[in-house]
């Protein structure tokens, strides 16, 4: 059988096109299995989530740690006894450490103050810039600085980059340091960085962050910073507020009334 070049090319071309079309059709079948994904209908949404903390209301009761306890319980945050290996999402820091202010003429009242600190969900998050796997990223929809523990490779660049110490690294198996485990939230594993996520999993179900809900004094106000009529914006408008280390240009979205 003889075949000239022209007909050979025609036949091969048709065969390749046919194979591609066949695969496409088969592909549609598989994709039809996918269904459509959506958010919960009653999810809480905002353009820019933020928080205002009224330190005058906080810690009214001596040694109150309800917000911390609630957060750490809901998110299976381990209680590691060794100080340098500790894991924390929200904790108390002295005023001096939280705001890093030095003056020769101290304000004794402020110096006594313990300030509630956690991830600031910065508008310009340095942790996100340095993450090589995008395991941490700023969510476009609402500005939350998210964590994807599936992707974290434990390089700890973000820990070094965060000027607020908001990130903890799991030096040991966190499950070994959990008394009670919330079955509805994952634990982390050794070699992964973790931090506060503004309770994205609770917002998705229409709930407020666990710390906000747990505070008996209403010292933590959570809301949409992009909405000029929101409670957080009202507070910022009416009160003098401070952010932690604003000079670094990270634009923290947690505001403090001191």
């Amino acid at each position, binding site marked *: 059988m003889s075949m000239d070049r022209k007909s050979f090319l025609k036949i091969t071309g048709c065969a390749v096109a046919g194979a591609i079309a066949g695969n496409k059709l088969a592909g549609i079948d598989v994709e039809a299995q996918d269904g459509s994904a959506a958010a919960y209908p009653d999810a809480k949404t905002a353009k820019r989530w933020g928080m205002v903390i009224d330190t005058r209301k906080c810690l009214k009761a001596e040694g109150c740690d309800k917000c911390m306890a609630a957060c750490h319980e809901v998110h299976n945050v381990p209680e590691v006894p060794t100080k340098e290996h500790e894991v924390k999402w929200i904790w108390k820091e002295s005023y001096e450490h939280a705001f890093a202010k030095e003056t020769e003429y101290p304000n004794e009242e402020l110096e006594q103050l313990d300030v509630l600190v956690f991830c600031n969900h910065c508008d310009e998050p340095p942790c996100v810039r340095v993450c090589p796997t995008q395991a941490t990223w700023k969510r476009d929809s609402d500005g939350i600085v998210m964590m994807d523990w599936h992707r974290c490779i434990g390089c700890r660049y973000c820990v070094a980059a965060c000027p607020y110490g908001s990130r903890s690294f799991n030096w040991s198996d966190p499950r070994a340091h959990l008394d009670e485990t919330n079955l509805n939230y994952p*634990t982390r594993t050794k070699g992964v960085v973790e931090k506060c996520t503004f309770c994205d999993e609770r917002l998705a179900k229409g709930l407020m962050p666990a710390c906000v809900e747990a505070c008996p004094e209403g010292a933590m106000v959570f809301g949409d910073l992009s909405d000029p009529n929101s409670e957080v914006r009202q507070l910022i408008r009416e009160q003098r507020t401070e952010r932690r280390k604003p000079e670094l240009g990270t634009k923290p979205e947690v505001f403090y009334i001191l």
Partner: protein
Amino acid sequence: MSDRGRIIIGLVVFLGLITFPIWYNSAAGTDSAAPELQKAKGEECIYPVDYMRDNHMDVLMEWRDEVVRNGNRVLKVGGKTYEMSLTTTCIGCHTEKAEFCDKCHDYAAVTPYCWDCHVDPSGAALVEARVHRTSALTGEGGE
């Protein structure tokens, strides 16, 4: 052909060695049949069983990306709505991880790391962790 005897002995030894796994396993009574998995509680799976058998790992990866990266937590398939969650939706029907996931993964010799973080509601993993913790506290287990 004075070496015939040696060659035949060599061949017999060679064949014996290369087929060792086969007759060792048949002598030990090892069964190569696929394991019997726990029957699911629900009536039907989200996708057809055959599709799930081949593609459950891809389905879970897609769910992971939808939930974590895109914030979508519910899935509508054929008029029904499901929460895209390994520990509530999947385990809701396949209630025993050890009798469903583990059995087949052991048979197929694969070790996915889903449960390193996700909590098995049946609690076996946590009991293990507590044992580990006790040994860590008493200084026996290395950490």
